[in-house]
């Protein structure tokens, strides 16, 4: 699931997004990419909500990854030390493909079996 955040993100908006995430949370191992390329402002309520989402997703063996991080978002994440908590990628595509790589690794080990059969 790709979640694109707008220029200004406050707690209320973040909670709206969090409700949208609930559907994804029904799945096993939810994979969520948050696009921060447009973000200029994000407050502490929104960051808390993002953390909560990360915890919920982690409890279901999934992951939240941040991609396309704007300089403003990068500064806020660094300021709040969240850069140490989240996996961050320069682009959304890289964030998304990091999931594929993670899934491919066990898949490539099992690949010879069907071929032999």
């Amino acid at each position, binding site marked *: 699931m790709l979640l694109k955040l707008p220029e200004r993100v406050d707690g209320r908006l973040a909670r709206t997004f969090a409700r949208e995430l609930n559907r994804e949370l029904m799945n096993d191992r939810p994979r969520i990419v948050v696009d921060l390329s447009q973000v200029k402002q994000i407050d502490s309520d929104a960051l808390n909500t993002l953390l909560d989402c990360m915890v919920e997703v982690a409890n279901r063996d999934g992951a939240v990854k941040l991609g396309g991080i704007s300089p403003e978002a990068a*500064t806020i994440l660094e300021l709040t030390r969240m850069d140490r908590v989240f996996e961050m990628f320069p682009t959304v595509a890289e964030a998304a493909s990091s999931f594929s790589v993670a899934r491919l690794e066990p898949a490539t080990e099992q690949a010879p079996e069907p071929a032999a059969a």
Partner: protein
Amino acid sequence: MYVGAIVTIAGGARCEERSGSLPRKRLGSYHSAPQRLLGSPFATWDVLGESILDRTLDRLRVFGVDHVSVISEDGFCHWSGSDLFMPPSRAASGFWPAWDSVVSHYLNHNMETLLLVRLGPYVELDYSDFLRFHRESAAALTQANHALGAMDLIAVDAKQLRDTKDSFRARLSAMIADRREYRFTGYVNALADPADFRRLVQDALHGQCGIRPVGNEVEPGIWLGDGARIERTANVLAPAYIGANSWVRSSCTISGASAVEKQCEVDCATSVDDCCILPGTYLGMGLNVSNAIVGAGKLFHLGREVELEMNDGRLIGSTSGSQRLTRTARALFGSMSTRRSQTASLVTARRFGHFN
């Protein structure tokens, strides 16, 4: 020699457009288009306890300049203190009416020399030597010149302006062609961008310019202003400056030649590295403030060259009473609304409120 000085505080780009016919446009060639820092002119921000403007005024007085007027290019006139020269017309609005008013008043009071200083760049000039050179060379107009370029610093023979039938500006412009150059080699900082401001603070802390911190050097390279408090578990690494009535709370780290100016509060477990924290700033709990200039509810990150408006007083705010009250109320409210322990365990110290 009876000397009157006009100190002009440079405005932003908007002001440059408006004041296109300024004599300095032709005179000064060294970074004559400075930016603002977090919404205010560089000259008005404190550098280790005192603003660049006040430091310049002090220097002028030390070097024997009799009267000083301060005019902002933004159109506001600031007559700088009761002990300084104060023209009768304080109502002049706009740069040029104010400038004309001051020049006229100086001439009417028999000033022999006018010293025009634009801040602009921070320049450590020996004003007495500059004025002596101007007097001895009998020039109508003398301009200070550094290896980096011509400075926005000129001395004008008042008689030349007094005798003119043209406007003062027109006469000044006509005099420029015959100016004498005064060469000097002192410290100069362009103050053209926030990185220059940061460099000025670093140079001051390392003793590489004439700026001395306002306060006491309690350990080698660590200066404290009056009433500054550093809690026992906080760590301050030299060189560093903690301004008057500022409070560095427990488990904080101040490092990387950082300056925390007066009346700031650095809340628990926050680290400040390679930063200028401008007066009256509150830094929330557990933050990592690095390579930045912070103040007036804004943060300028020097590495990324981005300015952030911080609308969240729990992260960065003001130490003024009303904001502090709001922050405390929000923190209390936040503590009442249930926060899950799971989240709390993720980050060891919750940093978005005093009681979270």
